[in-house]
């Protein structure tokens, strides 16, 4: 019976206890008003934790950092020695993730660890990450549309411990063995839920299943329409406004494209990349299969809803709405997919 109550005033204590088992990342508001995950004790203190909103920056950077040295090499008289970078194996705890970000982590797992090859850098980090998720009460803001992508404000996918807001405390429930074990270890700071809290939790889950309050949505039928509208002129019309910057992809919790370059200091570095940049697919022969903005924008939407369904059987979009919130020219994936004919 792995159900506990964590009183809100005890959170700082619980975080300190978790800090002994590994590095804890908590969502805090930074100096410029952006809520992002920072390391407890190093860049953030428990008091400025923000659990009441959807973080502006997803936890993707913790598992798949924007810049990562793959290995260094040395050349002596034509002879090369390659020394791989030791992949870190610190225990990491993401405390206060949202259900959409937790599901996004399972999608990154599918991309990096599924298929014929496994990405050992991602895998090594992923095995050491524990996710404490807090269920949402309806849409976190106007850009959310997780029910349209198979998620819900209380979905437990990707979470090790699920927490429901009881007002003055959190109802914590272990989902995976790792989650149950870590909750057991915290038993000292936790209480037992009473029947009122059990009922409240059921209400939250029920309300989440009904997808109440979500005005923004994408219907299955409009996703199905994508097969026939690949050559529609609609893509040219909306892509005309696109500035080809990388904002939508860098804030998307499931965007995983990257670039590999050799850099001074004899190191091979992997960095995030964006399919919206104009030279993402440029050949050295100057042929560029996706040279037009419309092709690139269409490719991103199709990758999220059609290609991913074909390749890994799930949508690569979790409906967090960050790409809608941050696009400088107001491009909206839900509007595009619903309106394209």
């Amino acid at each position, binding site marked *: 019976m792995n159900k506990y109550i964590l009183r809100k005033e005890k959170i700082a204590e619980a975080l300190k206890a978790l800090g002994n088992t590994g590095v804890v990342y908590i969502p805090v508001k930074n100096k410029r008003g952006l809520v992002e995950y920072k390391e407890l004790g190093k860049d953030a203190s428990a008091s400025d934790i923000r659990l009441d909103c959807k973080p502006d920056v997803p936890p993707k*950077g913790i598992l798949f*950092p924007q*810049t*990562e*040295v793959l290995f260094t090499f040395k050349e002596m008289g034509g002879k090369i020695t390659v020394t791989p970078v030791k992949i870190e194996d610190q225990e990491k705890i993401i405390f206060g993730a949202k259900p959409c970000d937790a599901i996004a982590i399972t999608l990154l797992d599918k991309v990096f660890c599924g298929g014929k090859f496994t990405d050992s850098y991602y895998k090594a980090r992923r095995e050491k990450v524990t996710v404490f998720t807090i269920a949402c009460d309806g849409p976190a803001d106007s850009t959310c549309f997780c029910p349209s992508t198979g998620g819900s404000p209380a979905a437990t996918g990707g979470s090790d411990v699920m927490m429901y807001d009881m007002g003055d405390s959190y109802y914590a429930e272990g989902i995976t063995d790792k989650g149950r074990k870590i909750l057991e270890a915290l038993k000292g700071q936790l209480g037992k839920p009473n029947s009122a809290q059990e009922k409240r939790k059921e209400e939250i889950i029920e309300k989440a299943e009904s997808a109440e309050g979500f005005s923004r949505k994408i219907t299955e039928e409009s996703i199905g329409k994508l097969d026939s509208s690949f050559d529609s002129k609609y893509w040219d019309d909306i892509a005309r406004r696109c500035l080809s910057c990388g904002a939508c992809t860098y804030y998307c919790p499931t965007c995983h494209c990257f670039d590999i370059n050799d850099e*001074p200091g004899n190191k091979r570095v992997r960095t995030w990349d964006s399919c919206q940049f104009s030279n993402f697919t440029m050949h050295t022969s100057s042929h560029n299969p996706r040279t037009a903005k419309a092709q690139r924008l269409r490719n991103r939407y199709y990758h999220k809803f059609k290609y991913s369904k074909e390749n890994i059987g799930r949508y690569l979009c979790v409906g967090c709405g960050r790409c809608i919130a941050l696009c400088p020219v107001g491009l909206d994936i839900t509007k595009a997919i619903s309106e394209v004919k």
Partner: protein
Amino acid sequence: MSGNHAAEGADAGLVSCEAEPRFEPKIVAFLCNWCSYAGADLAGVSRLQYPPNIRIIRVMCSGRISPMLVLRALKDGADGVLVSGCHPGDCHYLKGNLYTRRNLQLLRSMIDYFGIEGDRFQMSWVSASEGGKFADVVKTAVEKVRKLGPNMNFKVTDSQDRSE
């Protein structure tokens, strides 16, 4: 920043001839071929002493130096950059140094604004006959940069690097 950097400056080429090793800055000097490089040549021919810290790069005109070259030199480890050209009006190409003055003057105030000491970027006009002035320019430049210590602004320290 102004503390004794002997320990930290270990990799910056120590001259151990004195009792207590002091910081020897690395300065990249872009000299225009017609005037400043000739001035440096004259300083050498007439046996004038000046610190060996500058690495001279000859360019056809000081106008050739774009701000990017200066910034990239600082980023790749130079502790200071000196750009020297002909006196205004003497330019072999008539207006090269005038463009340099207009283009790079703002660069210095921007570098200072960013918290990278302005003295790390210096400019001078040295004509072909001013061997003495060239030696003095180099001396003052090296002293100014030596006082500032090694250029740490462009070093990747773990805390800054987002790659954790």
